[in-house]
């Protein structure tokens, strides 16, 4: 489930702190094992491994805002703790559910972009599941609005598509 780097690198460097610099210029101190969960940070740290003092390293993350990072960091931290123990999948799922349940659609999108950019695949999995869940029984119109998509079909084209499998358009949830 979690990527292999999480379990291997946590023990030796768990105490050390790394500074992450967000797109809006804020610096956030995180444990090195948390920072290693972020692909760009991991690459940056490997490139600069000759530096003696990790504390001095500032990893720029120009695509993620401080607000998003400050939500991501506690999640990743707790998730690492959970996966370090021989816990049941159910516990992880409950934790993921709790984390995502109250996310607004906008926040969900921001987190997904961040997880995508940072390569946190287990989070991306969860967020994709949640997004899919939120739209699966919705109307086409709702989905267009949800993702800001322009309808580029002519009315005839759209009607033809709908006529191919009318049953698929039944049972739509209220928006």
């Amino acid at each position, binding site marked *: 489930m979690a990527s292999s780097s999480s379990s291997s690198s946590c023990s030796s460097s768990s105490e050390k702190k790394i500074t992450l610099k967000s797109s809006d210029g804020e610096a956030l101190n995180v444990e090195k094992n948390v920072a290693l969960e972020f692909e760009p940070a991991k690459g940056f740290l490997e490139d600069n491994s000759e530096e003696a003092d990790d504390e001095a390293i500032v990893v720029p993350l120009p*695509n993620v805002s401080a607000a998003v990072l400050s939500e991501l960091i506690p999640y990743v931290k707790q998730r690492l703790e959970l996966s370090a123990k021989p816990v049941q999948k159910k516990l992880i799922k409950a934790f993921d559910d709790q984390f995502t349940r109250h996310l607004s659609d906008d926040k969900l*999108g921001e987190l997904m972009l961040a997880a995508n950019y940072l390569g946190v695949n287990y989070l991306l999995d969860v967020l994709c599941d949640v997004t899919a869940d939120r739209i699966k029984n919705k109307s086409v119109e709702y989905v267009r609005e949800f993702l800001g998509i322009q309808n*580029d079909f002519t009315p005839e084209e759209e009607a033809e598509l709908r006529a191919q499998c009318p049953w698929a358009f039944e049972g739509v949830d209220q928006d």
Partner: protein
Amino acid sequence: MPSTITTITNSIITFTSSSHNYQQSPSEVIANLDDLLTEILIRLPIKSLLKFKSVSKHWLSLISNPFFCRRLSLIRKPITGLFVDRVALKVNNPEYDFINLDSNPSSPPFRTLTFVNDSYGIQILQSCNGLLLCSGGHGNYYICNPSTNQYRILPQPRVGGGVSRSILGVNLAFDPSKSSYYKVVYVGACDSFLDGQLHMEIYSSETGDWRSYGGTLPAPNGINFNTGVFWNGAINWESSSETSLYFDVDQEKVKEMPMPPIPDGWDRGIYQYFGESGGHLHLIDFYGASPFIVYEMRTDYSGWFVKHHVDLGGVTAAFPEMIRTYRDPQDLDYYEYSILGVVREENDDDSYMLLHLPNKVVHYDLKDNTLKEVLDVASNGSQAVDASSLQYRWLEFERVCFSKYKLRLASGCYIFLTMPPTKRAKRNLTITITSSSNHHYQASASVETIINNDDLLTEILLCLPIKSLLKFKAVSKHWLSLISNPIFSHRLRLVCILISGLFVRRFTLRVNNPEYDFINLESNPSRAPFKSLTFVNDSYGIKVLQSCNGLLLCSSSRAYQPRRNYYVYNPTNKQYTILPRLHVDRGIFRSIFGVNLAFDPSKSAHYKVICVRNCDSLRDGHYQIEIYSSKTGPWRLSGGSFTAPSVINFRGGVFWNGAIHWVSTHGSSLYFDVDQEKLREMPMPPIPDEWEERRHQYFGESRGHLHLIEIYGPCTALFNVYEMKTDYSGWFVKYRVDLGGVTDVFPEMIRTYLDPEDLHYYGYSILCVVREENDDDSYLVLHLPKKAVRYNLKDRTFKKLHDVAPAGNQAEDESALQFRWFDAFQYTESLACV
């Protein structure tokens, strides 16, 4: 969720690195990141994907992308629902109920399959991982994806060397997680099915063609090839015996599969369910209405283990209407239910069975035995839903579905068994149909409905004479296809054969090709189908040897035996076939004494030709039979040699009751059972004391009756018509005939120059005994000088049918006759293929 996410970090990110004032909302950014969007889409149910194709062109292209489909196929989607075959009495196209198993309700994707216009209706044979294998008319098979309405018509399986083999089963193998191609496995019986030899053909959607499985293979008894289940990369078949077979589709190998032990006291295994779910093969036994065992097969085929013991006690308590109180509780049918499906869930605690009880379908939890109703089943007239069912689940786009189900493949005739054959209709155009039933539909609106309903139309067409059918082929392309359909002609054969006339051979000295008069016996006059036979250019001319249920056996007319060709000809549709030449052994041609045709269209579309030859050119009176079968091909010897009286008339064989009959003027008469290939003696009526030889005046068949007329005098105008008992125990007098009235009206038949006791005093011959449905209408066709007369056997009335022109080439006696019974051949219209 498994780690399906690959590196998405490489995706094109549309906003720039330093600035954070991007205008798009995060959702809009996501919507433009194909990789990310794909990750979301892949998690959606198929139904939503179908719906969201209409979100935008971009989404349409993403969802339609083959790579997307491929990825989608790797994800197990739960079963969406079950198609259940309804037993419909009236409709051609089977109807399917849909049991929705998805939390999000929707109406069924279809009630009947109409993705292609098949006038015989489309039936589901099997559901396999999203695809349906279906059958239609004309031996057509289809693969269809009910989610997308995509389909493919499979080419016809090859049936090797023009030999038709009976179909035992057709099965689909499709595993989208391994390959996007599917295979179809056809199992047929070999020619010699008595030995249990099987023949297999494999269709691959990759090559688009059928291929024969190497050679034939023996099969243990009791295997049900109809209900193959795809599991573990193989088509698996259940069997009532202790071993069954499975076909490894990749290796293309047939292997043995054990079956569960058969309990003491039972002579065979009885199973009520066989199907796959969630990668598990299930089998449910049925040795008592309840409890029963749900078996599961080990993946290495080492055997079945007991997965669940099921006791339906709780179900019967909750639904007492399923108890057939009028039956013994030990009776297998004491409880009325059927198992529609065993559904395995990701969490085995949630696995369940779908049970069909009277008027409902219930969900039975296999873990905690709880029940819930899922569907009310509308009763279908007097009948409940068929026990067979189809599980239906959404998968991906070229595919959908998966199933258990029972197949009734029986030659495709099922379609027609649904309507009583007495349907009558009146059309304002040219068809008028009369019937014993008094119903008729008159409104012109209903005429149009009938004409548009292939079922009804077929029923109407079946009531028509063959002549009309030939004519109505020109009505439209649709009618042409209906009438030309082999299933239609098969059904037509089951309708009683009616004689429509007699061909009588004219005796001529000069011409090679004999000429035939045609005596029309129908009320509706029509032209002779032919005057002489010219369907093929035979320099010796062609003569008719025998007529048998619509087919004529013909041969070269005046050729020396070794050069003689034999033909089977259908004068109605003008089809003919040239039989292979008879064998010549070591350069010596053994004489032919008689060639006879055996054709019973109500039993088989194939005919046999029986040839009686000298068994050794040096020994007279020793015979040998050779048989040609239109089904299996060349001439072959049948049985050993036999002796028979030299006067037996092997040329005048009559086919009746599955045998060819030959009469002899003295000594024993014989018949040859064509199916058993056994020669037997036929009893004959006693010969009057003062006679040494029989005087056959007629020997022939009509409407399933074998008739014999022997006339000895003293008055030849008085005679008996004998009929043979079906068990060959002897002849009985069916009719007593007195031609006194005929001689009064046609005095020219009396040869006044002869003694009244002379056997030739009355100049007539009997051409045919014709039996009618109502025996009061049965009649004789008599040949009197210059005419043919129809003589009613019951009320002794008669009327002239036909003028017979004198032979003309000789100044002959006024009372001369041209024909005798062996010159007359019945003409019955037939669409039989030769």
